[in-house]
């Protein structure tokens, strides 16, 4: 069964979704939770069976799909994708479990199960076309979730979300086709297998163009400035569950794809574009943080904060060294947990008050102390307090990039200041002061169903902040392989310099470890 565990992980929720149509409306929730739980258990099993010391792909599956055009159904996980898969399973589970009463609950849960299929598919696909299939397919359930259960502007938001990402990924598709064509020219066979592509060394000029083509697809998904404007709408209008999954998992697709595609395929171009992308990342960090500060709607604050944090992830990715990339992968998980939790928290208050405007709140800490506490924990994680999950990632990302550029890192580091500004001021507006609105006086604190989702997230937030090793170590091993690959593949002198040769590092690292 382990040989096919990835396929099972992908298609089990889809199958469950189809069968879900037969289930009575009243029982669908239990069904969803059960399926989510089984899926999560399976993903944990995957982790259990995963060999952390192996840097390459594991649980590979390979089925011919369109062999004459080089498209094959290839799956596999490594340390980089493993945890995002687990996170996806986890969030779907708690997302369904904490789902509030809504219209057409059945459709919602079935949609979520399909969404889960696409998410896990994206992170385990090792064939560019299969990757693309899941990548695009993930838009559909999300479109439906935003469009059918969202706020007043939901249709605008959902279409914008869909078309924007769709347009970007089409450019990426052209890039993929080019890549396959180059591979065909070099080897005489068509192949879309990423691992095959890894072996292909392209001249720098080709790399630059292809990098740009892929960049559009990824950057819009991340979303990077100035392609980010779909995100506030999507988040602002989406129902809680939609925002949670969007922030926690879907955004990670872009950054994950940078690591899976852009870096190893185009090492020279990555070096070439490192500074421009870092500048964009810095703009993302500071600009969106300032915009977040100007928001009136707490959900928008969290939405913009996501963009800001994604900037740090991008920066870490383009540090092009083990520290930075490991950090950015870790931050993907960290940000997934934290922003997911923050959106859940916003959902809690929205369910009670049906507004997200901060001016409607104030003094909530008086009536909802537990809520305030959990919000506070997530707030602190969000601003990167050490011993929370986000710090590890942020620290490593910035640390990594510091090797490449001092001044840019200094600018990017402003993240920790501006992040604190908008988050703290939002928290102050919501929780501190006296209760001014009568509606807020009788608010109920978080209930058991909500705690069911929030407590595990809080525990993860702190646990992984204190002891990131179980996750960081497999990530590190896989990232080392990626960096080494990039180093070996790079052709320009500058790239050779910028991208460290890991094999040298490995030795010194083990000796350091032995020393301790």
């Amino acid at each position, binding site marked *: 069964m382990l040989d096919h565990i990835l396929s099972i992980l992908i298609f089990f929720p889809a199958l469950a979704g189809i069968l879900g149509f037969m289930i009575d409306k009243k029982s669908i929730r239990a069904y969803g939770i059960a399926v989510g739980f089984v899926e999560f258990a399976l993903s944990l099993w995957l982790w259990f069976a995963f060999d952390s010391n192996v840097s390459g792909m594991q649980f590979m599956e390979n089925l011919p799909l369109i062999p004459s055009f080089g498209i094959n159904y290839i799956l596999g996980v490594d340390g980089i994708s493993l945890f995002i898969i687990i996170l996806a399973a986890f969030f779907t589970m708690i997302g369904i479990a904490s789902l509030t009463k809504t219209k057409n609950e059945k459709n919602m849960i079935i949609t979520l199960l399909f969404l889960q299929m696409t998410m896990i598919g994206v992170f385990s696909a090792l064939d560019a076309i299969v990757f693309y299939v899941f990548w695009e397919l993930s838009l559909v359930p999300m479109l439906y979730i935003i469009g059918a259960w969202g706020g007043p502007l939901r249709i605008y938001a959902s279409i914008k979300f869909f078309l924007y990402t769709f347009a970007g990924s089409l450019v990426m598709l052209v890039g993929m086709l080019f890549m396959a064509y180059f591979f065909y020219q070099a080897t005489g066979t068509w192949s879309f297998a990423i691992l095959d592509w890894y072996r292909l060394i392209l001249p720098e000029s080709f790399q630059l163009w292809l990098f740009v083509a892929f960049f559009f697809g990824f950057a819009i998904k991340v979303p990077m400035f100035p392609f980010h404007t779909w995100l506030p709408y999507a988040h602002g209008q989406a129902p809680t569950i939609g925002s949670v999954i969007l922030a926690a998992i879907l955004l990670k697709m872009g950054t994950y794809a940078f690591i899976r595609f852009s870096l190893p395929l185009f090492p020279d171009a990555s070096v070439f574009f490192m500074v421009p992308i870092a500048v964009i990342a810095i703009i993302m960090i500071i600009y969106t943080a*300032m*915009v977040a500060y100007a928001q009136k709607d707490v959900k928008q604050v969290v939405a913009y904060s996501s963009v800001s944090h994604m900037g740090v992830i991008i920066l870490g990715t383009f540090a092009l060294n083990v520290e930075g990339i490991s950090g950015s992968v870790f931050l993907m998980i960290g940000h997934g947990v934290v922003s997911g939790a923050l959106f859940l928290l916003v959902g809690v208050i929205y369910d009670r008050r049906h507004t997200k405007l901060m001016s409607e709140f104030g003094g909530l800490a008086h009536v909802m*102390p537990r809520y305030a506490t959990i919000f506070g924990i997530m707030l602190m994680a969000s601003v990167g307090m050490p011993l929370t999950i986000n710090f590890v990632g942020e620290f490593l990302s910035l640390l990594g990039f510091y090797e490449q550029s001092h001044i840019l890192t200094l600018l990017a580091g402003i993240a920790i200041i501006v992040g604190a500004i908008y988050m*703290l001021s939002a928290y102050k507006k919501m929780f501190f002061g006296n209760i001014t609105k009568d509606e807020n006086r009788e608010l109920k604190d978080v209930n058991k169903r909500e705690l069911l989702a929030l407590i595990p997230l809080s525990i993860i937030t702190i646990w992984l902040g204190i*002891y990131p090793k179980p996750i960081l170590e497999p990530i590190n091993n896989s*990232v080392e392989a990626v960096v080494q690959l990039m180093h070996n593949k790079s052709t320009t002198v500058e790239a050779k310099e910028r991208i460290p040769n890991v094999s040298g590092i490995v030795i010194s*690292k083990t000796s350091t470890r032995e020393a301790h």
Partner: protein
Amino acid sequence: MEKYLYIALFAPLVSSLFSALFTATPKKQFVGIVASFLIFSAFVSSYILLGHIMDGGEPIHVEMMTWMATGNLYIPFGFVVDQISVTMMMVVTLVSTIVHIYSIGYMDHDKGFNRFFAWLSAFVFSMMILVMSDNYAGLFIGWEGVGLCSWGLIGFWFHKDIATWAANEAFIMNRIADLGMLIGLFLVYWNTGTLQYEGAFAAFAQLDTATLTWIGIFLFIGAMGKSAQFPLHTWLADAMEGPTPVSALIHAATMVTAGVYLVIRSNELYSLIPHVGLFIASLGAFVALFAASMALVNRDMKRIIAYSTLSQLGYMFAAAGLGAYWVALFHLMAHAFFKALLFLGAGNVMHAMHDELDPFKMGGLKKVMKWTWIMMTIASLALAGIFPFAGFFSKDTILEAAFAEHHMVIYGVLLFTAGLTAFYSFRLVALIFHGEERYKIFGIHPHEAYRFMLIAMSPLLILAMIAGVFQAPFFEMVEEILGAAEYHIHSHVTLWIMLVGTQIFVGLAILYAYKKYGTWSSVPDGSSKMENSFIYKLLYNQYYIPYAYEEYIVKPYNEISEILWTKVDQKIVDASVDGIAGFFYSAGENTRDMQSGNLSTMLKWMVAGIIILLSLAVVFGLAARYSGEIMAILSGLGV
């Protein structure tokens, strides 16, 4: 010995978590008692560790587990107890224990009683991490941890807008400095390959001065934030909105000295870059004077003490910057004792005066609050550096160090500041405890604090009086690690002249303060000539710095944020995206009339298509046929 290390480190954590369990429940007296007891056990452990170190024992070094390890980076949770950290541990746990016990009384009627202890113990835990860590990353954990707890405690009364505002201000300002610190850490890592003190210090010797200078500067920026040095000082005064025990513990005795601790801990770095050290010393001296000047006219009891803290931190930096690390550390310790005492005393007064803070509205309190009066007076004497109290030994040594290092400007500034210190301290004491009972106008009936609070304060009182005797053993203990020499002025005569001269100068300042304020009888209403003088206004408004920050940083930040959102993000970035979509849509709207539904038009379109194609064909055909001629003409035209 390791077990004591763990007790010292984790007892506060246990205390915090234990108290946190009861945050949602009404006040429970035992929470405070258990918390105090746990902190006390940390104190006892620290004391045992101190004994171990004092006896010449090896520093204790433990590594609990890996924190972060990736690529070349390896950061463990490692803790070290050596001469420096054990000193800090003693200070932290002692003051904490006292403040915990004191708080049981002080927070007696507060409904956030349990929460208060959770935060307070969490602070102690963070502070212990900060001082015990064996690497910069661990220090940074504690660094941020104390910042967080400070945020929680300043804003403890979160219904008060000003308190939460101050909390956020403190946090954000510290973050600015933390960025510097972080960059310093990165520099250390990429230049030495490690963040462990041992490894890094060993590698520093091989680095060039420029790099070391940058490292030194960035780490010091971190220190400036935490220790509220100019220009990041404004948060400290505003932080006085927190409960007074918090001010005593965090904003006087421990957290604010973390910056000094950082410099002392990195002494191996700073001794390599004396020019940075000089800058630190100069800034320290400046802040000492600057803060003292603001304390002269302030009318808020706690703020006056806060400014004095700031001023004393300036002294410490001056010492550390001049390479007199042990002196700085010693002053840090002594200051912790008397300043905490001063704050707790102020807390008693506040309690008695129903949270009134303006000393001009008090007066004559010594009758009802005898013990508090004694304690505050002694603390002020210690602060002023009067023999034989604690401050004399620590502060005078700083002056001597400055003198001995031939930095006469610094010396002069520090000396002058000592006089100011004495003046404002006793201005405060005089206004509160002497003179007419002005509080009666406001209908307040003051009372002395609980007895156990006073008893809890007594160790501080004793230490403020006798800390000077520890100077010699302290020096003996730390000299190995801080490699410091005693500062001896060349001739004994000079030394004596200096000592006596200083004492007289300070004494005169005290007398002047008593003379001017000892018999104060009215509440100033802003009409007196002095209150309208430029200098007074300047000082009273803190040199207009908070105003400038508000006007030139906070407001523009708000406005720019607003502009970025409404104008840039919505009107430019988003609008261009929508514009592209809209372009296609309106293109459709505008051209759909081409499909008029009229057959004649449709036929015309077909014919038009043919004609266009034909004319293109003709052009192309002609061009192909006469390409030679066209080329000739074009080349004739110089194309």
